[in-house]
């Protein structure tokens, strides 16, 4: 889970990393007619000087996209905030802004902690060149970004942080300041089970203090249950609000932990995908694309969900307007019952009675009963359906549905 800047800064502050004074303003606080006394108060609290207004979005490179503005009066602040809240930025609707004192600084540095997945260790990154696009910078000047891996059981020892800071070119008091912040970042990573903690830029102010001007934190979704104290509201990572269908799908798994059937991402193709298993679903998406087809959605059900869940998912997938084909496929299941899940699919298809072609390929526990159920359904309702078991390689089913969907598209568009 990605955190907004203002949420990330709360975690930094809790660990003792200095941040600029600021206030988060949400959409619900807006809508005042005339001068907003709340914004006037914020402007005064921030010293009555120029303030920065930063759009709170999850996407990176916000500054370049016009997500940061400055205001030197309460009136200007209100103008900026009103223009920003509710606007679209990098595919997201801005629902809140962070208003901060405008920090004057002399240097911009970079610091982050994350995991190196090849070394399988945490890694500290420090550079004297911050405020830049760090990916590009690290590629062009690898010598100016110091990477230091360390053991996750002992953790980040101050001496390791000092070594890294020295190698990055820090000296004197600043070397100790940088190392101290690095050790605090390690506490942020461990205490919150984060996968990434990044400060870019970490600035040095005129009076020699270090300040985190931005914060990018990625929390480990697998560890949320051991952090009931930081209960961040759920958010979508697609860079756009959830569609109506995605919202309906999301509700499928709520309150029922038997298997998973609520993952659904709406795309703009015309082949409905009712696929199972994480690896299998992705492989089938690739195969449909490789054969020239365009998936209308992504989904993956698995973990042996009950028929009712798969019924509801089928209703979401198979009723999307503009479908020219439906692929119901998966690998040879180790665990998920084919008969049970297909019972849910069959019930939904009986209600929908699709005219577009359907291709099925599935194997696993209860496969004979499951496939027989579908063949009977096709015959009874006169569906254009091909049913395959393990004999057909899974990804061959993608080729067949792409061909059949193309033929069907021609037929309906030729009318």
């Amino acid at each position: 889970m990605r955190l907004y800047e203002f949420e990330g800064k709360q975690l930094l502050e809790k660990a003792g990393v200095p941040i600029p004074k600021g206030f988060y303003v949400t959409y619900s606080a807006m809508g005042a007619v005339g001068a907003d006394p709340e914004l006037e108060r914020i402007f005064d609290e921030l010293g009555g000087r120029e303030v920065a207004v930063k759009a709170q979005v999850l996407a990176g490179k916000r500054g370049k996209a016009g997500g940061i503005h400055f205001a030197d009066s309460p009136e200007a602040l209100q103008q900026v905030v009103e223009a920003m809240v509710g606007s679209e930025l990098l595919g997201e609707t801005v629902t809140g802004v962070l208003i901060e004192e405008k920090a004057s600084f002399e240097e911009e540095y970079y610091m982050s902690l994350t995991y190196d997945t090849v070394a399988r260790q945490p890694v500290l990154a420090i550079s004297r060149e911050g405020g830049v696009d760090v990916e590009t910078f690290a590629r062009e000047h690898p010598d100016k970004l110091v990477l230091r891996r360390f053991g996750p059981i002992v953790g980040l020892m101050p001496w390791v942080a000092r070594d890294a800071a020295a190698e990055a070119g820090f000296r004197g008091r600043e070397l100790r300041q940088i190392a101290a912040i690095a050790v605090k970042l390690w506490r942020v990573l461990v205490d919150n089970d984060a996968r990434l903690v990044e400060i870019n830029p970490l600035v040095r102010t005129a009076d020699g203090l270090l300040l985190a001007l931005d914060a990018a934190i990625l929390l480990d979704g697998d560890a949320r249950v051991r952090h009931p104290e930081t209960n961040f509201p759920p958010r979508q990572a697609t860079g756009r609000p959830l569609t109506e269908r995605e919202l309906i799908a999301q509700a499928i798994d709520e309150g029922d932990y038997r298997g998973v059937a609520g993952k659904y991402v709406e795309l703009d193709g015309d082949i409905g995908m009712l696929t199972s298993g994480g690896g299998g679903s992705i492989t089938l998406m690739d195969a449909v694309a490789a054969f020239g087809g365009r998936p209308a959605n992504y989904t993956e059900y698995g973990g042996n969900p009950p028929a009712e869940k798969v019924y509801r998912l089928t209703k979401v997938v198979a009723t999307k307007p503009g479908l020219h084909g439906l692929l119901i496929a998966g690998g040879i299941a180790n665990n998920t019952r084919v008969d049970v899940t297909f019972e849910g699919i069959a019930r939904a298809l009986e209600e929908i009675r699709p005219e577009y072609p359907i291709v099925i390929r599935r194997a696993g526990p209860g496969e004979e009963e499951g496939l027989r159920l579908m063949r009977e359904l096709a015959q009874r309702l006169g569906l254009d359906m091909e049913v395959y078991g393990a004999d057909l390689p899974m990804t061959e089913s993608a080729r067949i549905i792409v061909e059949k969907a193309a033929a069907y598209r021609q037929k309906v568009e030729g009318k």
Partner: protein
Amino acid sequence: MGILINENTRVAVQGITGREASKVTREMLDYGTKVVAGVTPGKGGQEVHGVPVYDSLSQALEAHPAINAVLTYVPPLAVKDAVMEALHYNIPFINIITERVPMLDAAQIHAYARLRRTRIVGPTSVGVIHPQARVKLGPIGGVNVDRVYQPGPVGVISKSGGMTTETSWIIRQAGFGISTAMGIGGDFIKGGNFVDLVPMFFNDPQTEAIVIFGEPGGGDEEALAEYVMQHGLQKPIIAFISGRFVDHMPQGVQFGHAGAVVERGMGSPAVKMAALRKAGVLVAEVQHEVGALLQEVLA
């Protein structure tokens, strides 16, 4: 001889009294695996399908000193404790089936396993199977194991659990059997990476070719390519990397497994495929092409 497991393997199942663990224990016993003990704290004295349950691994080891493999099936937040217990007793092979283990725990487990020189496969592993000795750990192969898994010359290493069996099935349809197949999980940090396991298949006399199933995210495939460049392609490797369509999706969207997150442009399937091809690995464009490629190299 199989990789990591063989006819001498004696298994203790951590969390054996759980619903899934108990079901899988039945499947393992039916296949021929020697499951000699189970561990669930507080349930010592019970039996699961005739397998005695102990309160601790130390008690299990006292009664069954031959235990040389541990199958970890405990809930995600209990995995670190369970694996550390197994590492403490120097169990030479630990297979973690549990999904959704926190990354910090996985990193700490890996660090300690390295100190203890223990092999770990997982978290999020579907298990390991060696058909020649009829031994399997974990749910791999499900109830109809023999349809897919017959002894033969091909090794399989897959990040995806479900696709471990599908890949092995493609191999069987191409006319070949399996030396050892394993699901290593798609987590960013795991005990067994491609680069840890491929050398074991290189050294395995039964294995003549290796098929790997990769996924977006992380740097496992790139690290394998580098290893092969340095140490040579000692046996043919055929790879399929899933998730190319993810390259066209907004960044940060999570598809499939935890590891299948494309963060910051790293670990994209296109990059992995290019690196592997450069190292001499045969890369299939569509998954079922693995069969034809295998027929070419083993002809």
